[in-house]
């Protein structure tokens, strides 16, 4: 598909020097993809088993969950230098930066704990007991609610960010992996990898209002395993990574119906938009590459080889 690329890129006109940063879980590196050329332009070493990855709001700091090093690393993205490490609790897998740009909410997979870290004082603010194998993390746009999903307990845990206490626990289908609030904060979407569904909750009242099901012709149902999820910039579509089915689903957020399936690389994990939001990058764990999707046409337009077992992705303008 490489030959279609120049035309599409001309249409999408990404900002100069925009980058997608990808953690390579089994290479202990991050790969930096130049959005304009779709080439890996830099590869930086990290701690062991890097997974969750996110930028500070001004993009001057990159936070990396180095799971097997039991720390969150803070990298200067201009140099690749590790500036310092944050206390993270044991085995940090996934995290989310609060809207205050200061507090990280971290899922400690082996400890059944969510850790709240102040990135300025570099201290643990709170640790909250949650279910077994916490993974998915989200914070509401107003910063008042944090969510942890626990993979074995099969719940979304609702955390009051002022008191650091749970105020609700809602069951979802088996092995919840990822949680995402809609831009207005009114809904929470939770993917369930083994259950093969996405549960949609109304934030107010924490009640489930819809469940999204998937079916891909020629793919066994139990290989359809929803993991990463992102909403389109206009909020009308949700893109859902479906793991070993090697597809990304496009869901109409008004009807909760799937409108398209896009074939990508093998075992697709997480998704990230280019800063201009014209392209969607998918980390493909097994094939060790990143698929580039043109958001407007919902087609895969390129593949970029990165390190071994790419997991998380974050964009920098």
């Amino acid at each position, binding site marked *: 598909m490489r030959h279609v690329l120049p035309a599409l890129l001309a249409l999408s006109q990404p900002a100069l020097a925009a980058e997608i940063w990808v953690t390579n879980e089994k290479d202990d590196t991050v790969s930096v993809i130049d959005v304009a050329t779709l080439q890996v332009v830099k590869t930086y070493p990290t701690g062991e088993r890097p997974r969750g990855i996110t930028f500070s709001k001004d993009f001057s700091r990159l936070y990396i969950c180095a799971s097997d090093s039991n720390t969150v690393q803070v990298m200067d993205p201009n140099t690749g230098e590790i500036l310092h490490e944050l206390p993270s609790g044991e085995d940090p897998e996934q995290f989310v930066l609060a809207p205050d740009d200061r507090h990280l909410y971290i899922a400690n997979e*082996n400890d059944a704990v969510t850790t709240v870290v102040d990135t300025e004082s570099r201290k643990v603010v709170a640790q909250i007991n949650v279910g077994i194998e916490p993974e998915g993390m989200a914070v509401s746009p107003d910063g008042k609610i944090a969510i942890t999903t626990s993979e074995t*307990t099969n719940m979304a845990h609702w955390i009051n960010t002022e008191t650091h206490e749970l105020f609700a626990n809602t069951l979802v289908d088996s*092995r919840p992996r990822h949680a995402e609030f809609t831009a207005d904060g009114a809904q929470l979407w939770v993917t369930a990898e*083994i259950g*093969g569904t996405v549960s949609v909750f109304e934030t107010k009242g924490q009640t489930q209002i819809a469940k999204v099901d998937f079916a891909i012709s020629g793919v*066994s149902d139990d290989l359809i395993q929803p993991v990463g999820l992102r909403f389109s910039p206009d909020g009308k579509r949700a893109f859902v990574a479906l793991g070993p089915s090697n597809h990304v689903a496009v869901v109409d957020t008004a009807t909760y119906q799937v409108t398209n399936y896009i074939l990508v690389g093998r075992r697709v994990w997480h998704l990230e938009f280019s800063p201009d939001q014209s392209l969607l990058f998918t980390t493909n764990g097994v094939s060790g590459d990143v698929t580039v999707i043109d958001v407007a046409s919902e087609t895969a337009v390129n593949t970029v080889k990165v390190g071994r077992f790419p997991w998380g992705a974050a964009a920098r303008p």
Partner: protein
Amino acid sequence: MSVSYRLSPGLAQWAKPVFIALALGLALPAGAETLAVKVLYLRQEVERPPVLSNLDAVPEDLGLAGAELALADNRTTGSFLGHDYSLTVISLPPGTDTAAEAKAALAEADLVLLDAPAPALLAVADLPEAAGKLLFNTSAGEEALRSADCRANLLHTIPEDGARTDALMQVLAAKRWMHLALVVGPKPADQAFADHLRRSAEKFGLQILGEKAWTFDTDLRRAAVVELPPFLMDLPEHDVLLVADETQDFGRYVPDNTYLPRPVAGSEGVVPLGWAPVLEQWGAVQLQERFEAQSGREMQSRDFAAWAALRAIGEAVTRTGTADPARLRAYLLSDAFQLDGFKGRGLSFRPWNGQLRQPIAVANARALVAMAPVEGFLHPVNETDTLGLDAPESQCTAFKD
């Protein structure tokens, strides 16, 4: 603390206290009723036959350790829902009349994990006291328990032996290693496993071109290099040498001591397992790390079977809000039930014989070779049903309501 043990004399060495960390994250609403979920782990100990090597001792908490981990998992979920799980362990010394001992225990528990040989399993399941209860076979792979000898109150979380040999043959067939030779040990379990190997080979179109019965009684630790190659010399040309040695007696000396330079599979070498410590994907490492932190050793298939049984109970209680065995059984056998077993596909129970539908790891000592069902072996309902007794093959009628 609600793990209690009733021990037979002489078993105190493994009766270590079980510490369950409670993650009490949420105070339950005032006035909410607590649901007690009492589970019995009933073990009939067996005498193990002597084997040539004593390098690998059988853990004294084999199986039980998996139940203990599942108890901790369930209790965490239960703490958010007001469900209080407890596990009572009864271990009976070899030679005990299992059914007689089980009578009193069954009066106190509706949900039972049975770690016992097939005859003892059936004797317990057939007790009047077991009627209407929900029992889980976590230890016996005999096919008859899933066919003519099935019982409506007995589900199975340990894979049937034929599912394991089917998994191995799928993997060999996918590699186009179609020509096989077979060495069979003298014990009944070896003969039974060899029979499954023959049937699975035929099922997937592989050929066993020659067989030899293991008859040596020499000490192989001194003479393997000398004795095995000539013993295997007269087998016809083959791609893979199969070994049926289910008590782990002589098989460990076969790999790399063959006459022809061939891989070994079956009970040794490339082995089909319900659980393998070399599993890395699908969150398996997380399960194993929890298990090792708890028990100080690697997780084995029997541990996984007990874990899966108690986790299945937990999942059913979580989703139905009841501990009633009939309602839990109905939920477990329904399409709604899915258990995350860290093997890449959701686990469910086959409604025709109560067997847990599960992928089988085909692995060597260092890595997973492939997870079965292998891509390309198709099934009209569920690809995992290419492993073991499918609905038309099972003679089980007890599940037909």
